[in-house]
C-alpha cells in the first residue's frame, strides 16, 4: 500500500518558461548560450510566438526570427557600455517535443569586446524575454583563457540579470612581443644585407 503525501505539485515545470544562460568570457569576446524550456502549460503560448504561419511546424525562417527576438531581449554591457551581440546559432526541438515540455530551444550569441586594458572589468547580462512567464538562471562559465579570472557574480533575485566582475590579465610576454621582435630582427637583417650590397658595389 503506497500513499502519497505533500502538497499538490506538477510532475514538471508546467507554467513557466525556464531560460538558462551560460556566459563565457574571453579576453576579446563574450559568448552567451541560452537554453529556453517551456513548461507544458505555456508551450502553446511560446509556440504561438514561433510558428508565425500557424502550420504546426517550425520553419528555418521562423526559427531564425524567434532567435532574433531572443537576441533583442538580451542586453550585454561591458564596463557599463552596451555591446552588440550577434546570433551565432539556434537549435529548436520538434513541435511535439516543445509541446511536451521537452526542449530546449538553444540560442547562442556572440559579442566582440572593445580593446580592454589589463585590470578589473565588468560584464552585465540581462534577459527580458517573456518576463510574463519566464524563470531565469544565469551563470558564468569557468573561463577558457587563463587571462580571465572571475572575481564574483551578482544577480538580481530572479536571475534575469547577472553582473560578472573579472580581472583581465596582461597577455604573456611572448604571445605578442616575440613575433614583433622576430619581425624587427628580419627587418634589420634585410636592411643590413642591402647596405652591405650597396657598399660592396
Amino acid at each position, binding site marked *: 500500500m503506497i500513499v502519497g*503525501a*505533500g502538497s*499538490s505539485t506538477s510532475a514538471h515545470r508546467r507554467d513557466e518558461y525556464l531560460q538558462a544562460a551560460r556566459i563565457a568570457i574571453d579576453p576579446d569576446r563574450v559568448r552567451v548560450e541560452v537554453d529556453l524550456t517551456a513548461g507544458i502549460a505555456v508551450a502553446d503560448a511560446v509556440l504561438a510566438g514561433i510558428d508565425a504561419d500557424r502550420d504546426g511546424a517550425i520553419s528555418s525562417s521562423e526559427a531564425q526570427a524567434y532567435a532574433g527576438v531572443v537576441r533583442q531581449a538580451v542586453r550585454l554591457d561591458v564596463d557599463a557600455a552596451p555591446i552588440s551581440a550577434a546570433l551565432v546559432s539556434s537549435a529548436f526541438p520538434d513541435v511535439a517535443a516543445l509541446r511536451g515540455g521537452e526542449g530546449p530551444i538553444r540560442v547562442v550569441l556572440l559579442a566582440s569586446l572593445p580593446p580592454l586594458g589589463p585590470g578589473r572589468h565588468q560584464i552585465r547580462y540581462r534577459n527580458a524575454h517573456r518576463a510574463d512567464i519566464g524563470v531565469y*538562471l544565469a551563470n558564468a562559465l569557468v573561463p577558457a583563457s587563463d587571462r580571465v579570472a572571475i572575481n564574483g557574480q551578482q544577480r538580481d533575485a530572479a536571475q534575469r540579470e547577472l553582473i560578472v566582475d573579472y580581472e583581465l590579465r596582461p597577455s604573456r610576454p611572448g604571445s605578442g612581443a616575440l613575433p614583433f621582435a622576430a619581425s624587427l630582427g628580419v627587418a634589420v637583417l634585410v636592411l643590413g644585407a642591402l647596405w652591405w650590397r650597396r657598399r660592396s658595389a
Partner: protein
Amino acid sequence: MRSLLKLSAIVPVGVVVTLTATGLAQRPAPAAKAPSAADATARIVKAAQAVSGSLDDAGRARLQFAFDSTQKTNWSNLPSGIYERHSLRMGDLTPPQKAAVTTLLQTALSADGYRKVNEIVRGDEVLRNGGPGGGGGGRVNFGEAEYYLAFIGTPSMTTPWMLQFGGHHLAINLTMAGTAASMAPSLPAAQPAKYTFEGKEIRPLGRENDKAFELINALDAGQRSQAILGSTVADLVLGPGNDGKVIQPEGLKVSAMTPAQQTMLLGIVREWAGIMNDAFAEPRMAEIRADLPQTWFAWSGPTTNGSAAYFRIQGPTLVIEYAPQRSVDHIHTIYRDPTNDYGAKIAAK
C-alpha cells in the same frame, strides 16, 4: 531423541566456530578492509552477464549498445511519454528477468544506494496511482514498468563499459573500467519526496535534505552570508543536456569551514558518491576529501528545514546540485564529475 538431534546439529557448528575463532585469534588483528574493487567488479560483471543470459535475442538487442554509442547521453529526468528511452524496459520483463536485474542493481550499488533507487522508483508508483503530481496530459507514463536498463559496452573485467539504469526522476550512469568506476553523471530525484509505504514514511532524498539544513545552520553568520546566494535558483544549472560545462564556483569555500563542518559536508557528499558499491565509493570519497580546499558550498532559499532550498557543492572533480521544484515534495538533483563524466578519465587509461 529430539535433544540429541539438536545437539548433533549444534556441535559441528560449534566446532567450526571454535576453530575459526582460534585461528583468527592467532593471526594479527586485520585492519577493517574495504571490499575489494576487483571482487566487486567480478560480481557486477557476473550479475550483468546473468541479466544478458536471461534474455532472448530481441531483449539483448534492447539491452546492449556499443561503448561509443550516443546511448550514453540518452537519459533524462522526464517520464516516458515525454522523453523516449530506447533500452530494455522493466515492464517487458518476466519475473526471473526482473529478479536478475534486481540482483545486478543490488550488486552494483551500495545497500543505501539500492534503497534510494528503489524508493525513487516506488515513488513513481505513487504518481502512477494518481498521487500528487501525477497526470501529465494523458501521454505520460509513470510507474515501476517505465524504468530502463542498458549496457553500453560489453560487461567486462578489463575493458570499459557502462551500466545505465533510469526513468522518471532517475538516471544512474555507472561506468566501469577494470577496477575503477565513475557514477557521473547521475540524477537521483524524487516526487513525491515523502510518501507512505506499508505504514512507513519514505523520503528517498530525506537524508540529503536534512544533512544540508544541518550544515547551513551550523555555519556562523559570516560563513552563512558567504554561502547564501542572493537569488532564486529555479532548477538545476547543470542538469541533463549540460555535459562538459563547468560553471564558476560560488558561495563559501570549504577551507573556511571548521573541521566539524567539513565532516558534515562530506556526509552530504556521501549521499551521492555512496550510491555506487562501497568498493568504488571509498576511493571516490578520498578523492573528494583531498579536493576539499578547492571545494565550495552555495545555498539559495530559506534555512529552516521544511522549506524549499537549493544547494550546490562544487569542487575540481565534483558538482552536486539539489534543486526543489517550487516545492519540498518535488526535488531534482545532479551528481557530476567534470573530469570523469561517463568515465572519461578512467576509460582513457
